[in-house]
């Protein structure tokens, strides 16, 4: 199928883009296009106007200041995957990104596009949730900061106004020696996960877990943090017992179901994937140490 007709605008500056969004009806923002283009071609999305923000160069890039990372919304997934600063400060990004789609889609797809598309199983929203990222949106009226926890409004719908553009994602890196892993259960390589789990934890000088974050993708309408499981890890010695206890907490979440996979199965996978993420993170450390 071919896309239905639309008028096309390719602003060079954010200001121009914001002006356009403020004035056009039934407009859509075209970021990397790796979801939207398919929806256009299938006529699932039929905007009258398309505002292409690929030409706005200052929307892309990765910077760090005082341990706080800032990623431009139009930074391509493939750039994130290979960026050495990001790898150094938040290596979980590479691990997760290698499971995002395929080379061809990562070459075009952007972090902002993925966040705004907000597929429940997508990796980048899960990472934003894991890091408690702050999302910066701009409109002609000004700028606002949304915590990731408040970013999902409904299923696959971000809490952005029609005239707003997501411009960047900010978050604090975890200490250098934190442990991390991102694991997925999917049918095929590169498919959206049925359940994905990401975790971060760091240890106190005495060797117990002092801080932990766990996120699940594919389970609810938006990625969810496992606060209870995180809390259960605090003060524990990393290892099987602690991980299993934390994972058990993941079982009790409320999971969605679709035409193929039941809520019950998803709950079970949540437990398994949580445990595997924690275990992988810790095993990696043990291997390095050995």
């Amino acid at each position: 199928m071919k896309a239905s007709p639309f008028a096309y605008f390719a602003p060079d500056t954010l200001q121009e883009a914001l002006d356009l969004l403020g004035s056009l009806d039934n407009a859509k923002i075209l970021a990397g296009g790796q979801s939207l283009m398919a929806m256009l071609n299938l006529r699932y999305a039929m905007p009258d106007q398309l505002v292409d923000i690929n030409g706005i160069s200052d929307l892309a890039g990765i910077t760090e200041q005082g341990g706080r990372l800032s990623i431009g919304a139009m930074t391509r997934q493939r750039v994130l995957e290979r960026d050495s600063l990001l790898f150094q400060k938040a290596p979980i990004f590479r691990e997760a990104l290698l499971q995002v789609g395929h080379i061809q889609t990562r070459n075009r797809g952007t972090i902002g596009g993925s966040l705004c598309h907000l597929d429940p199983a997508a990796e980048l929203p899960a990472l934003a949730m894991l890091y408690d990222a702050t999302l910066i949106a701009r409109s002609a009226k000004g700028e606002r900061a949304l915590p990731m926890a408040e970013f999902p409004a409904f299923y696959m719908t971000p809490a952005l106004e029609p005239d707003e553009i997501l411009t960047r994602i900010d978050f604090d890196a975890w200490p250098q020696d934190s442990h991390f892993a991102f694991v997925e259960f999917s049918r095929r390589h590169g498919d959206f996960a049925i359940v994905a789990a990401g975790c971060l934890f760091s240890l106190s000088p005495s060797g117990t877990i002092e801080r932990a974050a766990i996120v699940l993708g594919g389970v609810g309408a938006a990625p969810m943090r496992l606060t209870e499981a995180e809390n259960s890890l605090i003060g524990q010695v990393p290892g099987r017992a602690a991980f299993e206890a934390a994972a058990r907490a993941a079982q009790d979440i409320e999971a969605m179901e679709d035409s193929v996979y039941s809520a019950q199965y998803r709950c079970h996978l949540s437990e398994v994937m949580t445990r595997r993420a924690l275990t992988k993170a810790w095993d990696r450390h043990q291997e390095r140490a050995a």
Partner: protein
Amino acid sequence: MDPRFIGQSVRRQEDDSLLRGTGKFVDDLDPHGLTHAAFLRSPVAHGRIRSIDTSFAAQVPGVIAVLTLADLRPVLTSDRLPVQFKSDGLPPNIGPYILAKEEVVYVGETVALVIAESRAIAEDAVALIDLDIEELDPVTGCQQAVQPGAPKAALDRSNNIYAQFDMGYGDVDQTFADAAHRVSLALVQHRGGAHPIEGRGVLAHPDPMSGQMTVWSSTQQAHEARGFLIELLGLDETLLRVRTPEVGGGFGAKYLLYPEEVSVTAASLLLGRPIKWIEDRREHFLAAIQERDQFWDVEAACDASGKLVGIRGTMIHDGGAYVPQGVNLAYNAATAVPGPYDLPNYKLSVQAVATNKVPTIPVRGAGYPEGTFVMERVLDALADAAGLDRIEIRRRNLIPVSAMPFSTPLKSRSGSGITYDSGDFHAMYEQALKEIDLDGFADRKAKAAQAGLLRGIGVACGIKGTGRGPYESATVRIGKSGKVTVFTGAMPMGQGLKTALSQITAESLGVDPGDITVVCGDTNTISLGLGGFASRQTVVAGSSVSVAAKAVRDQALHIAAGLFEADVGDIELVDGMARVKGTEIQTSLKELAKIAGGSPGYSLPTGVTPGLEATEYFMPTGLTYGMGVHAVELEVDAETGAVTLQRYVVVNDCGRAINPKIVVGQIHGGVVHAIGNALFEFMGYDEQAQPTTTTLADYLMPTAPEIPRIDVHLAEYPSPLNPLGVKGVGEAGCLPTAGAIVSAIENALGAKNNMIQRIPVMPQDLFQFIQQGKQSSAA
């Protein structure tokens, strides 16, 4: 003399242009004045059309015409397509409409056609056609179809049954009574779609100079398509030519003339413009044939030693909303059950029924995978019941080489007997076990267990009837240019058929295969042809080519012998020359062709007949059967139900391999298609028979990371049924795959009693089985 070209993995002559991107597929054709078609398709599975208002659509700038059935009627001889295979005893009103008339019977059925300056505009206009439909209750599944009080899939039929027949032999009921072990199984088999990466496509191109309509189609059957098109359009062979450009895979979906091809050609006749329609992927999901569902309820029995004594049961086959081709698919599945095993008694009652889903006809494998799966499940179940090893029970039931050729009491759908013509099944079976290193399996299993994974092994066998007749055509010609050309009604869709036929020709004519042009899929170049189905082309067309090439060789030798005043036996054909053996005396094939072409008013040399050319229609006396053994090792993640294939061995009988590399490639493709059927590919429908998997993101075809290395070993047991000794392999890889995989999964889980009765095996189902198993062993 040892063959020079046959049996060699010569470079494919198809490759060069495909690798440069210059090969032309149907959507690459762009004649002057081209227009584009898009279809309005039924949005509901069953409904009565109240009205179709095309007036808004017709006003869209760039739209040339909006056509309904009534508009096409002036150039049609019928509103409906015929049942395209000879099928006796089928009820009336089962052929698809060219465009819907009063009723729609599946989501995706063609309702109206827009012709426009671009495809995008045509689609814009389709969206503006106002279709008013009264929704009717759909038949959503084939089990429901035969329930009392079920809705009818189409209002003009008396019930939902297309065909019912019994198949079998022996006295099953008697033998069951005193059999040592009995099992019963309820198997649900789903085989989704064909999904060649190139969808269907057609370009109807009227030529005002010749008055001839050329229909370019991405089809597996140029001549069959022409035959039905001329019938439906009231034309004759001089007025309509079907040609095929490169065809990007078929797998069964393109062995059919569809409503789209007819309506586009009809529209082109009406409008006098070239019109192209290219199927998009969504349309392939909605409107290209599938193979889909069969429900089998069978009982089986064996004696104390594990030898089969009988199988009996029923099968319901989902035929979909129309019967475009016949009920051959259900028939094949039923005949495939005995497979390479000695089954003394067999009785199956089959019903092919209507549902409000897209029609089903054979996809690669054509029912054989389903029959094979049933037998393999039966053997696993009987082994478990008899306390026998699953690998051993197969050994005990395979037909021994001493019984070859082996006639089963069944008849193939053409009415001829089923006789396995050659092969040592036991030898192939043992080879597969050796290649997969059965002896080392225990170690590998133990190692996997350390990593928390359950490793299993499964072995399964299948046998495919290949090389269906009644004939295939071939003309071999050496023109006055000296060029060797082969014309055939056989139809390549990616197999490398041209290369194989060139090798066969080269063998007789002593020219390089790469210098031989093979022309396929052009109804103007040869009058008859049946095309690509049933793993037949190298067998049947190859044989025709072989016989024709030998005849041309004889002519060439004869002329050369006359020319050189030598014995025919002293002439050899090498490198495009006819030469007196051991001398420098020679002339080119070009010169010989000129001699045979004659000169106006002069006699041909004595004994020389006109032209260096021969035509042959090889008619096989029966199908030739190639056995295949698949052995698979896999790992199951008991926590998730995920299955990872680790090792895959195939031993397959291909008769004589013309081009081993091509043969192995065919088997790779077949295996992976069937891995899709076993583990991934599911075509979903909701309670209203609305398809729910209409993108490749929802319908999961296997990709490279899911596929293990496939270790193929060719067993070459020449067929006595054709001059080349070949057997077909196009579908062979599909047969035992699901049986081997499912058996291996159960082996991994240590499960008995045929826990898995449904394919594709979904991780969620498997996980549930594992949980149930845990519970029952705990209890």
